[in-house]
């Protein structure tokens, strides 16, 4: 029984060590600014199209679904409120994080994994660079900056998707829609909506790096690491989402 638990506990411990080192390196010399901007470009700009598309359609779908439910109470006018709350609090952060996990946790894991199995990680250490400083920290910093921004974009595009439905399908006016959006959002929603992507960024970047760096067993191992990274990152996003939501509900019991 103890033996059975030993492996996962060791793995979690290793993950914390990596996370600790990566975070500590943020304030340590040397800084690899070029790598950070390269990663921002790959993670941020690269993910933009899918984030925009997904954001738009999830907002539109929310508006369609909710308007039917609201119609039963004659409250179709509140569609904007529901769309805004669910996007800002949940859908924006979670969907964006899942998309970026699918795209970048896997990308990071396979990139670092192939570097590991071709001895490039060893070569880095041999040639005077700390792979955590050079590879992990820039990816972490880039994701932590970019994921909240992507989430904000997804939120707005989603609301715009809802607006299109509201105007063209539900016969609401633009003013009706946007004013209900505006009125319903409070600071608490924004805090939650920005804290989540920030926390998810750690998951997305570090899980990818973690599985990449512990890859063994050649090309097959790289494939395995990639899959494990996406699965672990996605599950962790949902788990952490629950706890952060719980925290905010606990802070503001209504």
């Amino acid at each position, binding site marked *: 029984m103890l033996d059975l638990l030993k492996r996962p506990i060791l793995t979690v411990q290793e993950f914390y060590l990596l996370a600790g080192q990566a975070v500590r390196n943020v304030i340590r010399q040397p800084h690899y600014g070029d790598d950070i901007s390269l990663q921002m470009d790959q993670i941020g700009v690269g993910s933009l199209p899918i984030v925009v598309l997904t954001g738009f359609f999830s907002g539109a779908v929310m508006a369609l679904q909710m308007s039917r439910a609201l119609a039963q109470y004659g409250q179709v006018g509140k569609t904007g409120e529901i769309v805004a709350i669910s996007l800002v609090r949940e859908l924006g952060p979670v969907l964006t994080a899942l998309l970026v996990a699918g795209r970048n946790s896997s990308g990071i894991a396979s990139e670092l994994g192939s*570097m590991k199995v*071709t*001895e*490039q990680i*060893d*070569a*880095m*250490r*041999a*040639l*005077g*660079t*700390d792979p955590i400083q050079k590879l992990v920290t820039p990816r972490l910093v880039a994701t932590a900056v970019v994921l909240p921004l992507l989430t904000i974009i997804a939120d707005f595009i989603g609301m715009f998707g809802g607006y299109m439905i509201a105007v063209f399908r539900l016969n609401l006016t633009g003013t009706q829609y946007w004013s209900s959006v505006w009125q319903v959002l409070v600071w608490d929603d924004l805090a939650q909506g920005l804290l989540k992507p920030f926390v998810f960024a750690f998951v997305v970047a570090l899980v990818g790096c973690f599985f990449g760096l512990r890859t063994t067993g050649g090309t097959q191992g790289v494939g395995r690491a990639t899959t494990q990274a996406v699965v672990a990152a996605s599950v962790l996003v949902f788990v952490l989402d629950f706890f952060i939501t719980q925290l905010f509900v606990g802070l503001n019991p209504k």
Partner: protein
Amino acid sequence: MTPEPAALRFENVFVAFEGEEVLHSVSFAVPAGETRILFGAAGSGKTVALKTALGLVTPDSGRVYVFGQDISRLPERELFDVRSKIGMLFQESALFDSLTIEENVAYPLLNQKSIRCGPEECRRRVREALRFVELEHTLEKFPSELSGGMRRRVAIARAVVTGPPLLLYDSPTAGLDPITANTIITLIVKQRDLSNTTTLIVTHRYQNGNLLANYRYEPQTGRLLRTNGAGRRTAATRFLGFKDGRLILDATQDELDASTDPYVSKFVKHNG
């Protein structure tokens, strides 16, 4: 003991991965300027031995001295200074495939803290190192655009660009045709004799060991010349035989040739 510390010394080094012993009480010393040829079957621990010398693998027990400094318990940050004195050619070249050839060779110059060189100086040294391996024309290419033998040569350029006093070559000729293999051994001998570097080289080709032990680089002609056995080189070159993580032989070429051990003589038989 000699007053000058050995370039590299292993003392009862044990290494295990997940409970599996990979190096078992390995001890040897390489005085500065000498050459060691490591041989042994696949999985016998040669690569792990080289990585332990670089501090990439931490021994479970025993000590590793690089130029007299015990590196076996050093934290990673302090190892970087030690590593800047060592050049390593990895078994699969390990070039960074996101960087061009020029950037690959410049990498140790730009990243090793003990080396300070301005952009102009760096470019000059990169070019010089690439000229050394006769690949100046590939500066802008990426490693994936080169052949295996060319990649090996670029990796040699990257290993020697900082002029380290100790060089480790892991299977520099594995998987190459005899002509390219000889070119690469010539480069290694050239580097050794021009800069008087201490050299460790993993190789299965007896022919390579023979070249390293009995030939020296002749700068005038750019070729290898036989030192006729009695040369200083021959005495300063020893063969280290690995078997299942143990060092089973530390011998001169004559002793190696005379060995009756069936495992050892399998490697000598390639002489042809």
